[in-house]
């Protein structure tokens, strides 16, 4: 099991990493990041609702969060390198596939994916695609941050859920207590959920702590599939090409051997 932070984010997460405490919706900080090439422009996904285009959603590699953090620490060259890595990832085939998959989803579900949620009826290649992007991002992040200095990431599986906190267990066994509201904000507050706690030191006695959703890049359970039974919504889920096909007129059934059925 390899637990990685969720591989895609929205712009607000990047702004928050650059200017924690300020409004994540502010235009200025993101413009600064872009002007200095400390962040990518992201990938645009068409948003659909009720069969119509409803604007666009922009998704970013989570590497942009790291580059924004580095920029805040004044490590501007490292920030640029990581943003270039993010741009390479976002222009690669894995991101292109993700873009296609998200464009097929209703816009609400596509936005939920950015928050770390796999829709219940998600096509199976969505999970595969996210895992592959997460795996690549981890490789790039490891290469760059080994030099530039990493934030402390405590990633694991939630083992206990209490009224005020959850207990997060690393694969290696160490445990941490996380306020439950933080886990909930990361869409992870059930036993078994994967969560990461990212601690970025500000000064000797203060830090920015973010709870973010995580994903197991080696997990194959998500991909388990049975063609039998009624439980798996993937059996019923169509994409746009399927819809175009089924909108045609079905031809009469072929019965090549006459058969008598006794009841």
């Amino acid at each position, binding site marked *: 099991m390899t637990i990685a932070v969720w591989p895609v984010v929205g712009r607000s997460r990047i702004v928050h990493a650059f200017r924690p405490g300020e409004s994540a919706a502010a235009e200025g900080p993101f413009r600064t990041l872009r002007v200095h090439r400390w962040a990518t422009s992201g990938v645009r996904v068409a948003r659909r609702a009720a069969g119509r285009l409803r604007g666009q959603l922009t998704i970013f590699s989570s590497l942009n969060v790291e580059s924004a953090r580095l920029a805040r620490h004044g490590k501007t060259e490292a920030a640029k390198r990581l943003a270039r890595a993010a741009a390479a990832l976002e222009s690669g085939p894995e991101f292109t596939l993700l873009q296609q998959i998200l464009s097929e989803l209703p816009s609400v579900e596509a936005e939920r994916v950015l928050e770390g949620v796999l829709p219940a009826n998600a096509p199976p290649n969505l999970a595969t695609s996210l895992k592959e992007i997460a795996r690549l991002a981890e490789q790039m992040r490891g290469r760059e941050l080994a030099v530039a200095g990493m934030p402390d990431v405590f990633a694991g599986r939630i083992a206990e859920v209490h009224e005020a906190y959850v207990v997060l267990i690393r694969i290696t066994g160490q445990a941490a207590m996380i306020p439950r509201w933080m886990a909930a904000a990361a869409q992870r507050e059930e036993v078994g959920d994967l969560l990461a706690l990212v601690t970025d030191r500000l000064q000797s006695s203060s830090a920015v702590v973010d709870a973010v959703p995580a994903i197991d890049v080696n997990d194959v359970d998500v*991909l388990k599939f049975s063609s039998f039974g009624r439980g798996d919504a993937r059996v019923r889920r169509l994409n746009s090409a399927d819809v175009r096909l089924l909108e045609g007129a079905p*031809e009469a059934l072929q019965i*090549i051997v006459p058969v008598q059925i006794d009841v």
Partner: protein
Amino acid sequence: MACAPRAPRRSNPACLIHLRRLAWQLEVERFIQGELIEWSFDPYAASGDPRLLLAFVRATRELFGVGAHEREILEGPDGATFAATKIEVLAVASAWQGRRFGTGERASDVLMSAVMTDVSIRVPPRDARVFALVHEENVRSLALCRRHGLVEEMSRPHPDYRRIVTRHRRLDQP
């Protein structure tokens, strides 16, 4: 949908292929032996009109195959829905795989024809869209589907499984 498995023969050079196929073939066996009856008679699924067909050789009363199908509603990304029939399972007994009756028909063709006949006579009528999920390595079932008109390929619900449906005349075709 699949034919029931044959035991791998170690002396056979195709043994490894048999072993690789065993996983999805066993899944068929387990479903038939452990879940098919419940699937057929689940009161909560009655609206889908589930049908279980047992195919016997009339002369010997030998069970040579099992088929099942039900109504399914397929859902598009924008909320469009399509009524269809899902072939839940179609399995020919090991002893009858690849065999023909004295009259020349393949056992598998007779079984599939029985399913298609049953679909076509349901009241209220079933939609003529009939689809099946077939493991991509299950070449015999894929060929069987092709012979019976399941020739259009839809998206895969899983990388290993093909979803094939009966032929449709596209809207832009005359």
